[in-house]
């Protein structure tokens, strides 16, 4: 792309410009700051010129959309063919409440579903557990048994709509329940499309909703990989997630590095479990955060695609092109939203969403302006969805492929991101891989350090947040907030108890014993889980049984 000879001329010209016209202006009026940096605190130069890219090779670094290494996108036509999937995360209260919100969002033009489960479900407890007091339906929907899952997807054809489910510790359990609903709807498993997050390594690193220790958790994941490659071939088995790593306070490079290192660990585990890499790798997908620093984010998405392609081809010797392609979902950064002047969050979300689109995302969730206060109201959720639709239909951003490709700044940043993230991945390899690194607390510590560093910069107003450390107002304009009815807990507890009364308890007990046996013998857990949930075993009962056989995990509590 760049002629070396011309490159050196540009470097000389730039020097002349720096010492001449630029220096003259700076003497008169200095720059706003002594140092400019990204939100991750990576230093940024005043100007990027072609010479900075050195021996940049278009074919090797970029190539064409749909071609290795996919820097410019995983599909040849990208959004000119089909827009990204608009997949808003939703879930609160009971299954009925969430079913209603799902249908509302589909009516408003959303193109896929995404389920938020409440904390007791994420941790494998039933709503009537002592641990669930005060939490039922607050941060997501309560799912205790197949009954709840049937209500959640009532009137939603699972062969037509794809659903993403944010579930990790009990991913296999919730997925088994979903398969149970598909059976009831008469949809064969090979017609099912969707995603379970199923990314347990990220849980130990950042999100912290786990049940079992790392090793048995990895075994459950390879059970899912094996089962899906045989029976549910269109299902995305793991959504390898940087989102929560970033929310926990990592930098963009750390998000990229730790997420891909998790991906490497899953591929390694699948291969070691005896599944051929090209049989499961095409169904792995990624999930990234779209944070506030526009160009840094675009570069991160582009670097991620290129790195994964290289890792899969060179390191794992995958042959299928679909194994090389990094497909990803994006969510705008919840942690950047402010409780102060919450309407400003609409602007933040729009910019973050645009970076995801220019980065080539396959699906997108835009946060609602009220999410630092509570779960979204219907109105706030609608504005968030409309933000995506405005980018798609009005802005023109979807009309050409990778419009920032070739930007000296973006290409340089993409290169730097890749180099810095590879450095982290090498370190993790040296520790023996991600599971070993997590046990040492390495990524956890790196993220906590970055989070603390950033907070210091915000407190010193070196990183500006409008409405928080600049442009403050004495009184914020209040916005409506969604309140979860305190009766949800009572209603949900009653339903779960009724499910337990009505089922064949003897049969449930036998199925749970069979599950325990399978967990000890190493047999694939998916069929036995499905058997148990068909008889209306509850999530808590199943997870308790496996807590006995597989053990539990406790946070190392470091700060």
């Amino acid at each position, binding site marked *: 792309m760049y002629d070396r000879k011309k490159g050196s001329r540009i470097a000389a010209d730039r020097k002349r410009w720096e010492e001449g016209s630029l220096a003259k202006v700076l003497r008169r009026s200095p720059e706003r700051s002594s140092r400019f940096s990204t939100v991750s605190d990576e230093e940024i130069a005043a100007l990027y010129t072609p010479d900075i890219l050195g021996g940049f090779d278009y074919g090797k670094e970029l190539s064409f959309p749909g071609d290795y290494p996919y820097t410019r996108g995983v599909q040849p036509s990208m959004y000119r063919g089909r827009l990204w999937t608009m997949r808003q995360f939703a879930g609160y209260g009971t299954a009925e409440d969430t079913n209603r919100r799902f249908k509302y969002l589909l009516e408003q033009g959303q193109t896929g579903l995404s389920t938020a489960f409440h904390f007791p479900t994420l941790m494998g407890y039933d709503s009537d557990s002592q*641990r*669930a*007091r*005060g*939490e039922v339906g607050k941060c997501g929907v309560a799912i205790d048994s197949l009954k709840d899952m049937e209500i959640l997807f009532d009137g939603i054809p699972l062969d037509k709509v794809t659903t993403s489910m944010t579930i990790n510790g009990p991913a296999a359990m919730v997925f088994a329940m979903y398969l149970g609903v598909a059976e009831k709807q008469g949809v064969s498993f090979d017609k099912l499309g969707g995603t379970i997050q199923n990314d347990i390594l990220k849980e130990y690193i950042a999100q912290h909703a786990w049940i079992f220790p790392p090793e048995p958790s990895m075994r459950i994941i390879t059970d899912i990989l094996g089962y899906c490659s045989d029976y549910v071939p269109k299902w995305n088995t793991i959504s390898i997630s940087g989102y929560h790593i970033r929310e926990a306070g990592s930098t963009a490079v750390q998000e990229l590095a730790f997420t891909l290192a998790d991906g490497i660990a899953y591929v390694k585990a699948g291969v070691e479990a005896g599944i051929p890499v090209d049989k499961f790798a095409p169904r792995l997908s990624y999930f990234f955060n779209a944070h506030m620093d526009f160009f840094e984010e675009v570069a991160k998405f582009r670097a991620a695609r290129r790195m994964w392609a290289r890792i899969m081809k060179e390191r794992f010797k995958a042959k299928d092109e679909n194994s090389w392609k990094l497909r990803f979902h994006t969510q705008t950064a919840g942690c950047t939203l402010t409780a102060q002047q919450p309407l400003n969050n609409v602007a933040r979300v729009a910019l973050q969403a645009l970076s995801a689109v220019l980065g080539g995302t396959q699906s997108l969730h835009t946060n609602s302006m009220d999410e*630092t206060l509570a779960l979204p109201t219907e109105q706030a959720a609608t504005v968030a969805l409309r933000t995506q639709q405005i980018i798609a239909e009005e802005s023109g951003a979807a009309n050409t492929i990778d419009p920032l490709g070739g930007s000296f700044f973006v290409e340089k940043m993409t290169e730097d991101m890749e180099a810095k993230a590879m450095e982290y991945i090498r370190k993790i390899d040296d520790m023996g891989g991600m599971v070993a690194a997590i046990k040492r607390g390495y990524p956890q510590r790196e993220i*906590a350090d970055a989070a603390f560093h950033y907070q210091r910069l915000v407190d010193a107003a070196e990183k500006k947040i409008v409405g*928080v450390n600049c442009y403050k107002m004495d009184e914020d304009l209040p916005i409506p907030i969604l309140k979860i009815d305190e009766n949800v807990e009572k209603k949900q507890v009653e339903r779960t108890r009724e499910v337990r009364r009505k089922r064949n308890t003897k049969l449930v007990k036998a199925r749970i014993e069979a599950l325990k046996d399978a967990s000890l013998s190493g047999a694939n857990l998916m069929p036995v889980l499905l058997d148990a949930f068909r008889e209306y075993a509850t999530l808590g009962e199943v997870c308790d049984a496996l807590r006995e056989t597989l053990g539990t995990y406790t946070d190392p*509590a470091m*700060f």
Partner: protein
Amino acid sequence: MASAAKRQVAGKNGKPDRKVRILIGKPGLDGHDRGAKIIARALRDAGFEIIYTGLHQTPEMIVNAAAQEDVDGIGLSILSGAHNYLLPRIVSMLKEKKMNDVVVFGGGIIPDEDIPKLRKKGVDRVFTPGTPLQEIVTYVRERVRPRK
């Protein structure tokens, strides 16, 4: 963690010389510990002794840890929406243990309208998102004293 017995209590000028001990806790099931960890570090850097409970703590676990560690203040972070149940529960359990003089403060995703109710139930102060660290450090310095 130094045990209570080992602590230096007598100091110069008749004033207790020991460090104020603060427990930072994460009650409930949410795993959002970014804020809790940042505050733990900021308070430690400001010279307080910090006990961090780690995640997924029940009110019982937090109150037991507070008693065992003989803390002077408890800072609780909740982002799950379960604050209206968990925070008052912790305060009332402290009362049962006759630990009324432990100052309880909190933060997280807590709507403004819930704050007066929580204060009435004995939560001394609730910090909302965007609070500068220095404000929390100053509050703890002024408000939390070593218990006799």
